[in-house]
């Protein structure tokens, strides 16, 4: 489809949605609408929106959907596990008993939703060893922010609010950890990696002090490396008076194998849209499930669900609560889907999924490293990686000038959607981080490997072709034009028209 922008479509007078004509009894009692609105605040000119019929709107967005590759192809988007999203859960979420629920309804009228919240809370407690979960955080980063806020409230409650203003993390942690810490008004102390792939205990010992508020760390990291000293880390931070937060974004490979509690953490976070089968929606609505031990429960944002007999009740949070990080319950319909996913998997299924994701990653690593030009981070580190491995195409680039983004673009031509490269900063050149997970068949994984092999060959035989990829997508790759130029960027059609002199 050579699809126009919706702003360019339509014709005057067309309607895609009519509304009821105001009832005569209503109009008779209150008069016309204009008379009910303060003159100064009435809209003078109607917004410049398209005027389209319903079938035309539908068809336009059907076209755009078909122009989106996503999970219809193969997507091994690392650091953000791609999962099967059971369609049953979507059917359930479409029912009035979910879609048409107001979050402020009386608890007696939302016992079903509360049961899902409580049930998932129970399951995640089993999986983490924590004592209470909240699902208010509307994403993984928001859960990190929740931790930052709780850290703030915790130390304030102990009279150390002004003093403990540093949060320690590693350069390999997800950017949301330092970013949310900074937003919550902390100084961020970032530890660098040593040759083993994680910061040394000495570096940590040097970093802690009476200003230490918390440690926020993931393990394993995105390179598939597990820090075996993590218990010592937690001890060191605890002894310094700080809290320890476990960013469990990479939970998929270790589900049922390790728990935050046994490692000593005070809190942890799971991403329901990542590990628990909830669709990502191109970037949310998401849920960062935040769980903590007894000592932090008083600080949790409300509302929380409690069970009283066979009824569920609502606890709005006590005096120490941080209040809210987002209105209401969070993305509660996604909590329902995650609950369903856990129930369908059961303990054995979770165990199997973790096994499979690690097994497949190591299979992939073995096969990918056979491709000339592919290397991995920390090549000398022995043993199996976890559910991901950080690879590099630096050698290929040196040899051919074809970079990682070129390869990504070219792979899309084969129906393979983008891999994740690596979060900033990059430690190795031209990094890439595919994640096999448990939903892709061995055939899919073999196909993916084959596509990369082929593209690497193409990079040698016809580097220009790869550099100008994609060739089979809806549109070609972007120019190198500076999108950060204020005279060029345009996040709306009206800005674009002005900047290009068309309006």
């Amino acid at each position, binding site marked *: 489809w050579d699809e126009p922008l919706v702003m360019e479509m339509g014709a005057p007078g067309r309607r895609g949605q009519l509304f009821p004509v105001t009832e005569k009894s209503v*109009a008779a009692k209150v008069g016309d609408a204009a008379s009910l609105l303060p003159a100064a605040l009435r809209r003078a000119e109607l917004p410049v929106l398209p005027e389209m019929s319903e079938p035309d709107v539908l068809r336009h967005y059907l076209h755009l959907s078909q*122009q989106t590759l996503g999970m219809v192809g193969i997507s091994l988007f690392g650091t953000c596990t791609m999962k099967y999203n059971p369609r049953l859960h979507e059917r359930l979420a479409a029912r009035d008993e979910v879609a048409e*629920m107001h979050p402020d309804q009386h608890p007696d009228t939302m016992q079903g939703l509360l049961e899902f919240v409580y049930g998932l809370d129970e399951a995640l407690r089993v999986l983490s060893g924590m004592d209470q979960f909240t699902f208010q955080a509307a994403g993984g980063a928001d859960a990190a922010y929740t931790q930052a806020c709780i850290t703030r409230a915790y130390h304030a409650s102990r009279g150390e609010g002004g003093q403990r203003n540093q949060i320690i993390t590693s350069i390999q942690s997800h950017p949301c950890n330092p970013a949310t810490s900074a937003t919550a*008004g902390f100084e961020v102390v970032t530890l660098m990696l040593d040759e083993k792939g994680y910061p040394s205990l000495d570096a940590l010992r040097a970093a802690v002090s009476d200003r230490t508020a918390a440690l926020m760390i993931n393990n394993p990291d995105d390179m598939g490396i597990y820090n075996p000293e993590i218990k010592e880390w937690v001890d060191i931070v605890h002894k310094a008076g700080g809290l320890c937060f476990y960013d469990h974004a990479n939970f998929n490979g270790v589900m049922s194998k390790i728990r935050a509690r046994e490692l000593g953490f005070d809190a942890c976070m799971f991403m329901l849209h990542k590990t628990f089968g909830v669709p990502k929606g191109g970037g949310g609505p998401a849920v960062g499930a935040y769980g903590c031990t007894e000592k932090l429960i008083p600080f949790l944002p409300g509302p929380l669900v409690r069970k009283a007999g066979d009824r569920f009740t609502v606890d709005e949070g006590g005096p120490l609560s941080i209040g809210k990080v987002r209105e209401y319950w969070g993305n509660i319909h996604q909590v329902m889907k995650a609950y369903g996913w856990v129930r369908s998997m059961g303990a054995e299924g979770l165990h199997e999924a973790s096994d499979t994701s690690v097994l497949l990653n190591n299979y992939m690593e073995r096969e990918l490293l056979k491709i000339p030009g592919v290397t991995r981070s920390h090549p000398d580190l022995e043993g199996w990686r976890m559910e991901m491995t950080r690879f590099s195409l630096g050698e290929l680039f040196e040899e051919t000038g074809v970079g990682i983004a070129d390869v990504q673009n070219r792979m899309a031509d084969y129906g393979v959607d983008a891999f994740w490269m690596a979060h900033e900063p990059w430690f190795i050149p031209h990094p890439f981080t595919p994640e096999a997970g448990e939903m892709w068949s061995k055939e899919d994984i073999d196909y993916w490997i084959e596509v990369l092999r082929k593209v690497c060959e193409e990079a040698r035989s016809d580097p220009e072709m790869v550099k100008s990829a994609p060739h089979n997508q809806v549109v070609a790759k972007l120019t190198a034009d500076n999108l950060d130029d204020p005279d060029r960027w345009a996040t709306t059609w009206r800005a674009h028209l002005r900047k290009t002199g068309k309006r």
Partner: protein
Amino acid sequence: MDSGVRAHPYMPNSAPGLKAELLDTLGVALAEELFGQIPESHRFREALALPPALNSEVELSRHMTAILSRNQSCADNLSFLGGGCWQHYVPAVCDEIVGRSEFLTPVWGTPSSDFGRNQAWFEFTSQLGELVGFEMVGLPVYSWGCAVGHAIRMAARLTGRREVLVPQHLDPQRRAVIENYCAAADPDKAIRLVDVKSDANGVLDLGALGALLSERTAAVYFENPNYLGQIETGAAEIAAAARAAGAETIVGVDPISLGVLAPPSSYGADIAVGSIQPLGIHMSGGGGLGGFIASRDEPRYAHEYPTLLNSIATTIKGERSFGMTLMHQSSYGSREEGKDWTGNSTYLWAISSAVYMALLGPQGFRELGELIVQRAHYAAALIGEIDGVTVRHDGGFFKEFVVDFSGTGLTVATINERLRARGIFGGLDLSRAFPDLGQSTLYCVTEIHSAADLDRLAATLREVCAR
């Protein structure tokens, strides 16, 4: 097949033969061997105390449906709840589009492979920009409250000031979120919220506002319509006063009102924020929330956005495409040096809203706005006729209004309980959050409420309020 072991439907490689084949390839006997990096002392070796798996869909479906049947929805009952989540009609085409697998399940691709989704996002920001009258619109954030939080932080960075004036009558939920965004571990970094009181008409007291404005003021934040449903008639004066004090004006709007109400840009707002939930997204128990941030397209503002910014762009073949601008200033680009943070948000809802706005078009927004205003006033008029019940403000609202039951001698809780027994979810109870308003509730009336529904409400209220 191995004895009794069944492959799980979600896991193609759990077929026993396949798994064995993979293990063989790696030369290991059990997957367990692959976890060698983890010290034994770290391992959890107990059985997970989870309920048994419901891995047959027929059982799972029934289990889930049985739980859901314990809900009573606003479709089965007549609901007047609003406040921060509203029951508007969601056209079936919106559901159809966001349910498409292509939009529902992916995470992120390249500008070429995700072209269609990026265009849909651009159509979201472009149409929302027309509604609010601004040229710069970010991709959505979690919620209205989060949008306000970010906008206030933008203003603080822009002005270097740390005090923000906010309405006394602000949604307590939204306020709780804002307070978190303004607090700081380092007290020097905190932003202070200062309340501006309302006048008798339920709008900001301009005199009080003027007295509070100072060179410390980073921004004035107000809403239109405000939390009590009233239209801020002094919007232009407020923005002018803020500007005079060197402060930014941040306006929170309900975008569904913008077919009949003036866009914030027209009365001097610098930044507009609000909820996208009314624009074609089901309430879903609050799971339908999403927030937006918009402003003039000036580098000064652009450089403070924490959101992703999806810009029109050009391909090497000269085609129109889309790409992210100013990515370096996000947390992905700059970690703790970035503007606040970003991450997974509510981007699927951006698509639903884009579809919604395209379906309505200018005439649909106008028609919808007029209908809501009329029905809301009709409801208020009927309710106001009931003995002991007062509608606090004599008009000037959009879809919500405050009803005070103090004169009935009954609490809101009692009235709402009686209504609920009659299939009606009464308005939001304001009595705890705002004792100054007495036994008040916030009633929300939209296009889903027919005149007959409102007549029924009035009759039922008359019945339950009778001594």
